C-alpha cells in the first residue's frame, strides 16, 4: 500500500485536486446557472440585451422579476416544438446509420491480428484529427446537384437526372454519420475485443449457424458497447449546428440551428437561453445513462 501514499505525501496534493475541480465548476457548471437566469429575464434593446432580474429599490427593497414568458413562447410556437422533435428524429436516424456502418468495421478491427489491428484503429481515428468543418465541407462537392456523385451516376446511366441530396435530411444523416463514426467504432471495438471467443466456438459446436451465433451471442454481449457508442453520437448530434447549416436545407429544423439564429440573427439572448435550457433537459437522461455505462465499464 506504499503506492497509495505516493501522492498523499505531496504538500500540494490538495491543490492538484482542487484547481481542475474549481476550474470546471467555474467554466462548465456555473455557466448553466447563468443561462437559466438569463432565460428567465426579459429581452431588451441594450448591451447585454436583457433586463436584470433583481432590481434594488429605495429602502433596501429588492424587486425580483421572473419572466416565464420565454418558455411559454417556446411551448406556444409550433416551430420550436417541431424543431425539438426533428432534432431528436434526425439524431436518432443518424445514430442508427452510424451504428450500421460502424459495427462491421469494429468487428473486423477486433478480429484482426496485430499489427493490422493497430493500423486499422489508427485509420478510424485519423479523420477525427483533421478538421471537422472541412470534412463536412467535403460532402458539399460530392452531394450537390452538379456534384461528383450525380456526375458518376449520370455517366453510368443509373439515373437520368441529378438527384437532389444536398439540402435534404439525407445529407444531414450522412454528414453526422461521417463525422461521428470514430465515436461509434471505438466503444464497439472495446466491447468486441473483450468478447470471449470460446462462447462463439461453443455455439458453433452446438450447430449454430454464424448468423444465429451472431444474434444470440455476439450482439447481446456487445450491447453495452452499442449503447455507449450510440449515446456518444446521439447526444452531440441533437444540438449539431454545422452539419444542418452546411448540408441541410432551409426546412431542416434542428434545435442547434434555431438557437444559433435566435442568438446571432435575432439577438434575443433570453429566448436563446430558454432554447438551451430545454435542450439540456432533453439530453440529461441520455447523459446519465452514458455515465452509468462508463462507470460500469471502468469497474469491469
Amino acid at each position, binding site marked *: 500500500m506504499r503506492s497509495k501514499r505516493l501522492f498523499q505525501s505531496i504538500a500540494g496534493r490538495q491543490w492538484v*485536486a482542487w484547481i481542475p*475541480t474549481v476550474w470546471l465548476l467555474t467554466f462548465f457548471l456555473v455557466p448553466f446557472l447563468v443561462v437559466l437566469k438569463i432565460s428567465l429575464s426579459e429581452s431588451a434593446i441594450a448591451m447585454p440585451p436583457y433586463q436584470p432580474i433583481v432590481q434594488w429599490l429605495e429602502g433596501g427593497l429588492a424587486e425580483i422579476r421572473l419572466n416565464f414568458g420565454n418558455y411559454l413562447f417556446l411551448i406556444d410556437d409550433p416551430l420550436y416544438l417541431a424543431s425539438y422533435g426533428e432534432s431528436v428524429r434526425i439524431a436518432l436516424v443518424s445514430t442508427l446509420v452510424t451504428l450500421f456502418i460502424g459495427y462491421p468495421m469494429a468487428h473486423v478491427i477486433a478480429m484482426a491480428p496485430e499489427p493490422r489491428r493497430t493500423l486499422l484503429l489508427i485509420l478510424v481515428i485519423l479523420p477525427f484529427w483533421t478538421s471537422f468543418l472541412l470534412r463536412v465541407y467535403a460532402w458539399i462537392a460530392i452531394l450537390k446537384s452538379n456534384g461528383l456523385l450525380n*456526375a458518376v451516376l449520370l455517366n453510368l446511366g443509373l439515373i437520368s437526372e441529378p438527384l437532389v441530396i444536398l439540402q435534404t435530411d439525407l445529407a444531414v444523416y450522412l454528414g453526422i454519420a461521417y463525422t461521428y463514426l470514430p465515436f461509434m467504432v471505438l466503444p464497439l471495438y472495446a466491447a468486441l475485443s473483450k468478447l470471449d471467443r470460446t462462447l462463439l466456438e461453443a455455439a458453433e459446436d452446438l450447430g449454430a449457424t454464424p448468423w444465429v451465433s451472431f444474434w444470440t451471442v455476439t450482439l447481446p454481449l456487445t450491447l453495452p458497447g452499442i449503447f455507449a457508442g450510440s449515446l456518444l453520437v446521439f447526444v452531440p448530434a441533437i*444540438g449539431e449546428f454545422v452539419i444542418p447549416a452546411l448540408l441541410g436545407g432551409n426546412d431542416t429544423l434542428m434545435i442547434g440551428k434555431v438557437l444559433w439564429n435566435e442568438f446571432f440573427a435575432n439577438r434575443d439572448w433570453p429566448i436563446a437561453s430558454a432554447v438551451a435550457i430545454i435542450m439540456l433537459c432533453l439530453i440529461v437522461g441520455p447523459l446519465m445513462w452514458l455515465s452509468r455505462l462508463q462507470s460500469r465499464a471502468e469497474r469491469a
Partner: protein
Amino acid sequence: MRLSRFVFPVAASLGFGFLYIPILILVVYSFNASKLVTVWGGLSTQWYVELFRDPQILDAAKLSFQIAAISATLALALGLAAAITLVRFEWFRGRTWLTGMVAAPLVMPEVITGLSLLLLFVALDNLFGWPSGRGVTTIILAHTTFGMAFVAVIIQARLRGMDRTLEEAAMDLGARPLVVFFTITIPTIAPALVAAWLLAFTLSLDDLVIASFVSGPGSSTLPMVVFSKVRLGISPDINALATLMILIVGLGGAVGFWQMRRAMRRR
C-alpha cells in the same frame, strides 16, 4: 463463418471507403485547375498560391495557432491534474463532481457550451470587469475548458493501465514522491501527454461554434473565416487548406503507427 469471413469484411471495407473517399476527393481537387468539381482542368497549384496570398486566412490561421498552443498547454496542465485526482486520490471528496464534469463536456452540444460560456463571460465582465470584452482571452478560456476534458480522459486511461512497480521500487529506494513523479510517472505516460496535447491543440484549431459565441470583433479564428467562405459555396482554396491539414495529420498518424510497431516489436 461466412459472416465474419465475408459479410463483415466487405461491409467494413465500404465503411473505410466511406471514411476516406471524401478526404481523397478534397486532396485531388485541390490540384484541379478548374473551379468546378465535375470538370478536370488539369494539374495546378494555383489554389495553394491563392491561399497563401489571402491575408484574411493567413491572419486567422496565425491567431488560431496561437490560441490553440496556449489553450492546449493550459488544458494539458489542468487535465493532467484532473486525471491524477480521479485515478489516484481516493480521498478526494469532490470526486463524483469532478468525474461528471470531466465526462460531460465531451458530449455536450457545442451550441450550449458556447452560449453558456458567453453568458458567463458577460456576467463576469459586469460584476468584476474581467474578462473585459470578448476576444482572444475568452476563446482561450473556453478552449482550455473543453480541451482539458479530452486530456483528462486520455491520461486517465494511461494512468489506469500503468505498471506501478517502478514507482514502488523508487519509493522503496527512498525517492521522494515529487522526484518519483517527475522521474518515473511523467516519462512513463509521456506518449499519452503528447497525444493529449496534440488532441487539445487540434480541437481548439478546429472549433467553430464555441469560438463564434465567445469571440469579439477582430478575433476571427480560422474556422470562422473558413465557415463564412464555405457558406457562400465551394471555394477551391479551401480544398488546398484542407489538403495541407490532412498532410500534417497523415504524417502524424504514420509516425504514431511506426512508433507503436517499434514498441510492440521490442516487447
